[in-house]
């Protein structure tokens, strides 16, 4: 992906990216940094986060690796405190960490249900609770402020066996509309990105053979999205003039039908 955004439109911004150790989050954190933002990196894998931070700093950027399980509310709050001390007031939040686990409802894989609800819904709410105050403060000060989430096309599609994952993403898409009603007037932009198939580690966690095949076939047969494609688009959203809110975006591989 050749980059489309020029200069450093995110200079002066302090960003937090959850799920920054791989895939979409990693690429977006790196792009935010290239575009001038200081970036806090959250995910569980410390070594991976440190690699990302290292790459950012070697290119002259500023990054802070904070190994954090975002399903742990207190841990996210503690991370927020460290960020505000070390990087400043957060004004750009990319709540992106998520997991996709596919099974038939009758299989009662309740642990998988919980894992998705805990990360995709509660993890995002934990991220919001830790940073919404900082975003509101930025908006009230007349600075740009963004809450951007990663939903999925699963939020609107009807895919067999994707019930819990799709439900968690529908929650994310709809709460975007709801949060706008409260945060818009405070000058906080709320956006959600619904990607189609992106080549990341996401499918690696899937154990259902049909779903694995569906995703493997897509990756094999069509030119799917790369994380950098999504990163450029998310960065565009954040770099727009502060009264322009690109609030809902669907980004798909051109050839993907679903």
């Amino acid at each position: 992906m050749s980059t489309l955004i020029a200069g450093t439109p995110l200079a002066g911004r302090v960003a937090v990216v959850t799920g920054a150790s791989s895939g979409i989050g990693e690429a977006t954190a790196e792009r935010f940094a290239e575009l001038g933002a200081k970036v806090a990196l959250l995910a569980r894998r410390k070594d991976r986060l440190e690699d990302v931070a290292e790459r950012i700093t070697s290119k002259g950027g500023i990054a802070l690796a904070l190994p954090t399980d975002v399903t742990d509310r207190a841990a996210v709050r503690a991370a927020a405190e460290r960020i505000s001390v070390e990087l400043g007031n957060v004004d750009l939040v990319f709540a992106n960490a998520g997991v996709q686990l596919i099974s038939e409802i009758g299989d009662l894989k309740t642990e998988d249900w919980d894992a998705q609800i805990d990360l995709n819904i509660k993890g995002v709410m934990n991220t919001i609770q830790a940073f919404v105050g900082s975003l509101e403060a930025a908006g009230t000060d007349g600075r740009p402020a963004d809450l951007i989430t990663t939903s999925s096309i699963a939020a609107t599609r009807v895919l067999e066996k994707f019930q819990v994952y799709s439900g968690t993403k529908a929650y994310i898409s709809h709460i975007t509309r709801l949060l706008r009603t409260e945060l818009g007037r405070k000058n906080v932009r709320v956006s959600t990105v619904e990607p189609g198939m992106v080549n990341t580690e996401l499918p690696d966690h899937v154990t259902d053979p049909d779903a694995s095949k569906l995703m493997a076939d897509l990756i094999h047969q069509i030119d799917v999205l790369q994380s950098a494609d999504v990163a450029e688009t998310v960065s565009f959203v954040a770099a727009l003039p502060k009264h322009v809110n690109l609030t809902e975006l669907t980004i798909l591989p051109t050839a993907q039908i679903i």
Partner: protein
Amino acid sequence: MPFVDQITLEDNRYPLRHRVAVITGAESGIGAATAAALHARGAAVALLGLDGRRLEEQRSRLPGDGLSFAAVADVTDRQAMSRARRQIMDSIGVPDLVVSNAGVMNGGPLRDADVHDMTQMIEVNVLGMLHTAQLFLPDLEEAAVGSRPSDLIFIGSIAGEVLFPNFSVYGASQAAIAQLARTLRAEIGPNGVRVKLVEAGVTLTRLGKGISDRVARRELEDLREIDLPLTPDEVADAVAFAATLPPHVNLSELTVVPTKHGRLGAV
């Protein structure tokens, strides 16, 4: 500067060079701004619309020496559109980026609505978009061969999603556009044509200037009175960004609203 470096520079500044764009409703508002944004990024542009003088005025304002063309063509007139298509091919080339933008908005309680106004909204907003899409589809599919970028972009409205009482016909026409865009995306995406739906929130244009119903006019004015509504240029920037993404990436739906308009419509 070595030749190769020059190419990179051109790529960055004019990412849409070699593209041939057609924009309907290009004499003002989002259409005119989109023509300018695409042209500024290097595309040859054809401006279609109803008012020849204003089209020519917009066309002559485009800076630089890039290709441009303007023609009067009513999107509801299949023959005129077909003629315009041939003229575009003769003057600037085969279109690979079509922005179906022409639209009209009227308002007022349905009970009192003028039949002519109702019909016009459906004819321009729905049938006009269908004619535009169908006429240029062969060109777009041809352009997409060999994984080259090819775009069919529908400019719709948030009125297709949220409810604005007194704007039922307009809202219905916008919902039709949305479903047309989504369905076509699945239909021709596999052929490489990137069908996109842009749903714009309150943008300062001439849209709705002819509304005669006092209540509907008042409602529209109230919506536009927020501090910092969108300008057509801002919507156009989003359209241009989407068109500039690599061919395998389709930013297939995007909703752009003024930040302050958190809550809109009745629901």
